[in-house]
């Protein structure tokens, strides 16, 4: 047995990965001083409250990950399938309410056959999914074995006898009609990949024997919930086996799998999916920038900038297990030669990405210095203090911004000798009472980033005038982008907002009002765990909100 295969020992677990309630109770038993949660006060009780949810449709990324997990990394995953349908800008939220269109049905059919043909065409791949040697095209027994074993992975649960009979029958029907068992595999596989049991994540739940009157998700449903939340893909064999043994409705069995999953390299894919959705990094593929204004811009900038941000999060969470808020202050980032040229730092590698550290006195630090954030929240030919401020408010602090009034002149004066910088041109936002109420929530934040142009490159002047990057965040003044980063890092809303974003990602639903109590307790635990993201993943995955189900 190799080291990798050894079960994780509990002593090996970091304390931060254990649910805070457990930590607290351990502390209470040993009569030690309270945990170093300085000033946190008593932990609010965790409500026994099920999160809202719906049967999620697999996202485009989840579909691809599932296909690769089923048939190998090198399989060619068709990309033309039903596109994601973001709700409020979030793909995950949209997956709980959107449907599959007629066009989507067509595309899934075509994709299913494209995948099935590849599986049959490659002997090694075929062998990996075919548990028996067919005696002929009409070997119903082998057909049913195939349907049963692969179906369990595709549907993420054991198949009912009627399902096995039907898929096995279809296989033999196709095999005899078309003259080979392989053709039969192709059709049976294509059928599974078009099934709503594959394309959706049905969650029904069952009565909870430990909580009379309440419902919980079944052990098998928990397996899918966990794997899509933590890995953005289907369960692996170990998780599925644990689910079949009923372990995922038990505290201990659940914790064991959650810890294993978070420590698995696949958790990086899960974190990437969350960060992509939360920070809208998918939109970087369709960035609209005028290259006559931004000469450094080219179509590869958007995807590279996304990769940078994802690597920074991955590094922070998995390599360093650091405080989440460090993402605003870190001078470490990952760049390819293109990004290095835009940041004016030496490229760490000739191709691909390498780690760099900005100098201590660099004007930019942390996430708000990333090209991804700066370019996404700008116009095609200029910056926008308003859009950047809105990003900080809505995505980092979870403050709501009312929609702009419908009948208002929103035109900005052109740059002129009197108003050379954006700060001067948007001065009216500050004086006109109709604008002021909302714009004061956004502009003073975004003006702190004016030293970075519409694609995130540093500039000290605009229209030959020196840029003043000062501003304030909720009354806390700052002189420049570096200080703005500190203000955000220190803001009380940063932790609960991050918890809310990750919780709603996990449940794939906008939290209901009463779930605020759940988020508050999770925030307490997150703070008590030193803002470790891995800990928060575990707190959410083991929380009642994630385990309890509503009446269907």
């Amino acid at each position, binding site marked *: 047995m190799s080291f990798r295969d050894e079960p994780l020992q509990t002593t090996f677990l970091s304390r931060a990965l254990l649910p805070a309630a457990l930590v607290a109770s351990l502390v209470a038993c040993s009569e030690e001083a309270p945990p170093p949660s300085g000033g946190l006060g008593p932990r609010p009780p965790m409500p026994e409250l099920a999160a809202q949810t*719906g*049967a999620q449709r697999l996202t485009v990324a989840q579909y691809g990950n599932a296909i690769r997990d089923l048939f190998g990394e090198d399989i060619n995953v068709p990309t*033309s399938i*039903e596109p994601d*349908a973001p*709700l*409020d*800008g979030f793909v995950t939220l*949209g997956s709980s*309410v*959107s*449907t*599959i*269109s*007629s*066009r*989507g*049905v*067509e595309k899934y*059919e*075509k994709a299913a056959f494209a995948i099935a043909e590849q599986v049959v065409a490659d002997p090694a791949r075929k062998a990996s999914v075919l548990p028996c040697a067919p005696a002929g095209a009409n070997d119903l027994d082998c057909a049913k074995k195939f349907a049963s074993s692969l179906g369990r992975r595709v549907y993420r649960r054991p198949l009912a006898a009627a*399902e096995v009979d*039907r898929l096995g029958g*279809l296989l033999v029907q*196709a095999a005899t*009609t*078309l003259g080979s068992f392989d053709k039969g595999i192709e*059709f049976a596989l*294509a*059928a599974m990949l*078009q*099934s*709503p*049991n594959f394309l959706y994540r*049905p969650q*029904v739940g069952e009565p909870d024997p430990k909580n009379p009157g309440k419902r919980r998700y079944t052990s098998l449903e928990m397996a899918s919930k966990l794997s899509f939340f933590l890995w953005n893909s289907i369960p692996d064999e170990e998780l599925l086996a644990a689910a079949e043994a009923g372990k995922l409705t038990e505290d201990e069995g659940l914790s064991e799998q959650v810890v294993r999953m978070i420590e698995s390299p696949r958790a990086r894919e899960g974190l990437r999916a969350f960060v992509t959705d939360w920070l809208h990094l998918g939109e970087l*593929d369709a960035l*609209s*920038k*005028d290259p*006559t204004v931004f000469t450094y*811009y080219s*179509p590869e900038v958007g995807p590279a900038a996304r990769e940078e941000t994802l690597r920074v999060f991955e590094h922070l969470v998995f390599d360093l297990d650091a405080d989440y808020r460090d993402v605003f202050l870190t001078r470490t980032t990952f760049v390819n030669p293109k990004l290095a040229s835009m940041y004016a730092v030496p490229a760490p590698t000739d191709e691909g990405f390498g780690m760099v550290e900005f100098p201590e006195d660099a004007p930019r630090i942390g996430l708000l210095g990333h090209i991804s954030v700066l370019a996404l929240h700008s*116009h*095609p*030919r*200029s910056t926008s203090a308003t859009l950047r401020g809105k990003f900080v408010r809505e995505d980092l602090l979870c403050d*709501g911004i*009312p*929609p702009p009034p*419908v*009948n*208002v*002149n*929103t*035109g900005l*004066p*052109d740059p002129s000798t009197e108003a050379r910088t954006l700060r001067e041109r948007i001065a009216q936002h500050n004086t006109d009472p109709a604008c002021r109420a909302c714009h004061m929530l956004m502009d003073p934040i975004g003006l702190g980033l004016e030293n970075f142009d519409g694609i995130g490159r540093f500039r000290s002047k605009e229209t030959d005038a020196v840029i003043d990057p000062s501003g304030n965040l909720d009354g806390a003044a700052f002189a420049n982008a570096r200080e703005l980063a500190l203000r955000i890092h220190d803001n009380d809303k940063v932790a609960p907002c991050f918890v809310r974003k990750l919780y709603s990602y996990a449940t794939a639903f906008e939290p209901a009002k009463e779930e605020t109590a759940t988020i508050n307790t999770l925030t307490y635990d997150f703070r008590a765990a030193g803002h470790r993201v891995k800990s928060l993943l575990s707190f959410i995955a083991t929380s009642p909100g994630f385990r309890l189900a509503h*009446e*269907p």
Partner: protein
Amino acid sequence: MKRTKLSRRTMLRGMLGGAAVAIGLPALEIFLNANGTAYAQGDALPKRFGIFFWGNGTLPDFWVPKGTGPTWEPSPTLAPLAEVKDKIAVITGMKVYTGNTVPHFSGSAGILSGAAPLNNGTELQTFTQPSIDQVIAEAVGQDTRFRSLEFAVQPGGRSLSYSAPHSVNPPENSPAALFQRVFVDGFVMPGSTPMPDPRLPLRQSILDGIMEEAGSLQQVLGQTDKERLEKHLDGIRALEKQIEKLQQNPPSLAACMVPGKPLDEYPDVDGRPPMSEISRAMVDILVMALACDQTRVFSQWFSSPVGNPLYPGATAGHHQLTHDEPGDQPQVQSILLYIMSEFAYLVKALAAVPEGDSTLLDHCAILGTSDCSYGKSHLLEEYPILVAGTCNGALKTGLHYRSPSAENASKVLLSLARAMGMTLDSFGEGDARATTSLTAIEV
């Protein structure tokens, strides 16, 4: 008995200045009626419905034509429509009554579905009622291979074709994808006999099984999810219909040709998407999809609500310009001219295809509209509404109708649905519901 030898014709035809060259496949003339103008069975040529939609509205001061009735002169931004003046109706002065709660979205939902959208704040959420193309597809889309076709011109553009709340019909986003879907995957030339394909009944068997599985799931899921699966089942049934069609001999259609294959990609020019080229390539495919009776309902999403593409020569994105450009907004005017030129191209392309004793356009009703009227302030008054085609003589064209009293824009939707043969008492919901149609554009 010796089979009649059918002559193989090769037709090369430049379409509208040679943008697309279509090569005709064998036409089995034995299926044509005496003049080769209608189905041999004697059925009337079908009616088609379409939407041409652009984002960010208009400039009302430069939009409303001078003169009403048949004697009107195109306004500055409608100038590109001068050539097709007798083939369209311009309707002005009407209002969308959805309440202007979500800029760009209240107007879109109102003019496309006749009802206010659902929203919970600043973000676009969903229509609450199906859009008119889907209402009509429900009635006339059952006999064709595709219930409806949606395509977006702006790169990454979205569609607002809704079958139900949160059930949007995503568009094809490239000419190549549209071509592949209509004319490559499973296309059978009308008039030809398809080769028997044993895979087709097997594909139907798969779909039967999927319906069974979806049915079992529906029994355990909650009401909302049950309805979502029902929409999925609609799609399955549509695909079954498609597969069924592949096993039939489609009647010959005189004007049907496979259009020229579009380019694989249309790269940006100076950071600006070549929207005109993309649009024309898509329209050339669409026109033949209609002529070959592959669908009777389409929607062309030229640009998206709040869409911010850079147009040639513009110094900012479209949406940004509508808000920030001072004065008469000359750049926004140029963009509107650009968009109207593409609407004109669509109308001309349909009018260029003979069908029966008239043209394909004469068997169409096309609604051209946007997400608001004045983009700068998201007005819902003075709504931009264009109608092209007479829909087999049901609609009047060549006129400007000016509403004297900010009439409900949904009246136009009711007229269009009725022109398509539907018997409806009303169209829309709530304040935007119309119980009378706009008789001024009806024959």
